[in-house]
């Protein structure tokens, strides 16, 4: 097997809240390899988002080892982490997190601006990414002129446009109805089959069934880590 993309060992994350210590994560170890399709499952408050933020270099663990593509993340400065987020990681959030005043196209161009791509290249790549998610005709719309499903597609396009090593999606269908949720899941399926690595946080079994590997978290610990024997690959709209 190839080298892991992500390797974490005995990771813990605690928060201090009003003099009390909250253990969001206690002793998590994982390896994630290229072109895996992983679902992180668990009840609300179990630490899924905390783990996701650490994997995405938005947050750093209180203790433990994290190496990304063989590099020690704990050694990195804030700007190094920003660079990793920009070049290697594509985030998709439950609440979309688009810039409200910018058009779809501008939103997608933003990560390219931060990686210093020239403006013509930027535009070309952003248009391509929007077309790939089926929104070629919505380029100049602002988020409030788009439906929830369309906003999430813009967010997926923004995550993809920098050609990251890994896509991290934290409850990407949580704010969508079932039908649009399935459309987004279809998008992830396509990405994975084209060779992308996808990690998906969800607490819905229906969503998790699409993934090839399912990791269950409870109380900040890995409860189980199993291969999904029969992943869903058809996308009938119920």
């Amino acid at each position, binding site marked *: 097997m190839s080298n892991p993309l992500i390797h974490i060992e005995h990771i813990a994350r605690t928060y201090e809240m009003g003099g009390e210590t909250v253990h969001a994560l206690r002793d998590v170890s994982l390896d994630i390899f290229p072109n895996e399709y992983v679902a992180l499952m668990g009840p609300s408050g179990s630490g899924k988002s905390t783990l996701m*933020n650490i994997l*995405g270099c*938005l*947050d750093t663990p209180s203790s433990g080892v994290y190496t990304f593509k063989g590099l020690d993340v704990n050694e990195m400065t*804030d*700007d190094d982490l*920003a*660079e990793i*987020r*920009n*070049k290697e990681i594509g*985030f998709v*959030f439950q609440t979309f*997190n*688009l*810039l409200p*005043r910018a058009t779809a196209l501008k939103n997608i161009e*933003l*990560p390219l*601006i*931060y*990686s210093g791509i020239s403006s013509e290249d930027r535009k070309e790549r952003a248009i391509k990414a929007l077309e790939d998610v089926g929104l070629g005709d919505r380029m100049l719309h602002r988020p409030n002129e788009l439906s929830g499903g369309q906003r999430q597609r813009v967010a997926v396009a*923004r995550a993809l446009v*920098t050609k990251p090593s890994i896509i991290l999606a934290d409850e990407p269908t949580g704010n969508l109805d079932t039908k649009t949720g399935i459309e987004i899941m279809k998008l992830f399926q396509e990405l994975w089959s084209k060779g992308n690595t996808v990690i998906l946080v969800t607490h819905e079994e229906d969503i998790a069934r699409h993934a090839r590997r399912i990791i269950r978290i409870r109380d900040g610990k890995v409860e189980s880590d199993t291969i999904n024997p029969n992943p869903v690959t058809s996308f009938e709209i119920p």
Partner: protein
Amino acid sequence: MNILESIIQALQSIKANTLRTVLTLLSISIGIFAIIGAGTAVSTLEGSFNTQLVAMGQNTFMIKRTPSVNFGNSWRKYRNRKDITYQQAKEFKYQMEGISLVSLHNETDGYTAKRNNFFTDPVVTLIGADENFFVVKNFVIETGRAFGMSEVTSSAPVVIIGNDLVVQLFNGENPIGQFITLKNQQFQVIGTLKSQGSMFGRSLDAQAVIPLTVFSRYHSDEWTSSVEITTKAYSKEQLAEAVDESIGMMRSLRNLKPWEDNTFEVETNESVSSQFASFSNYLQVFGLGSGLISLLAAGVGIMNIMLVSVKERTKEIGIRKAIGAKRKWILFQFIIEAITLCQLGGLIGIFFGVLAGQGLGALINTEAAIPVNWVIFSIVICTLMGLAFGSYPAWKAASLDPIEALRYE
């Protein structure tokens, strides 16, 4: 880096906090207005003043009781000086004969000239002069003639009038030989002066020149009893020598001991200019000082607006960081925003400052200068202000924790 996006963002944040932003921009505008306004005023006055100095003629200098331009508290120093009396001045003129041409004169303001049913405005300057006055002071006779020495010694009631009097009293008639009244005294018009235009908004044609002897007897009071002496050296080379000679002569005429200071002023073109320069510096420093104070207040306002803007856009900052914005990008964005706000206020201030300067120019009938160096200075100051007062909010934005910022609602 994307400057345009930051500028648009700045303009949008004006919409978001209209009142506070408008007040802050207003105080920037007032600050810049003070700087530019004073700058324009000074350039305009200087331009006008220099034109007049050139017209005043070469190689002349004046001896008078007090300096022509004075400001601040310096009048205290001069108020106890004794008058230069007509006798002293006459003696001076007599002794300077052959060395340089000397003219004596005195003047007073606010006269109304009358003829039959015609009146002038009460702004006529009455000048009492000797026969050399016209040559030494460059007063050109347009029609008729000047008065001579005999008319001065015999106190002849004759007058040479400026163009304003010709227009207001004679209505197209030939004034030569006619009579006019100045403060209940009749004078016969023997000549008219060539028009001289205006200086600092005052017409130079509202003048009437009568023999100094008549002036001293009937028209001088305790404020205007000191005679002014104007001396014209025969050449540029002789000017310095003539000045030295004059000082020595005046000192002995006024019985000054060697250790005493001069009790009179000697003014050459240069010394008047330098007095004027110190006056205009005073105006400039005043404008600059009050402008900077106002800008300081505005700076605090800018900082406040930017802090509010950072707070309101915490989520946006979180998003930008999540997709890979480094510190410098966030810093840059907010500093550009602050600079844009400052520049906007500054431009408004420059616009009204220049407009006010033009207004002043129109008021005093001179071409107003646009003080290019002060405009550039203002733009630089606004940029520095944006930098100085935008840095802290920008630093705060750049230091936000991405997760905390993303969670902010």
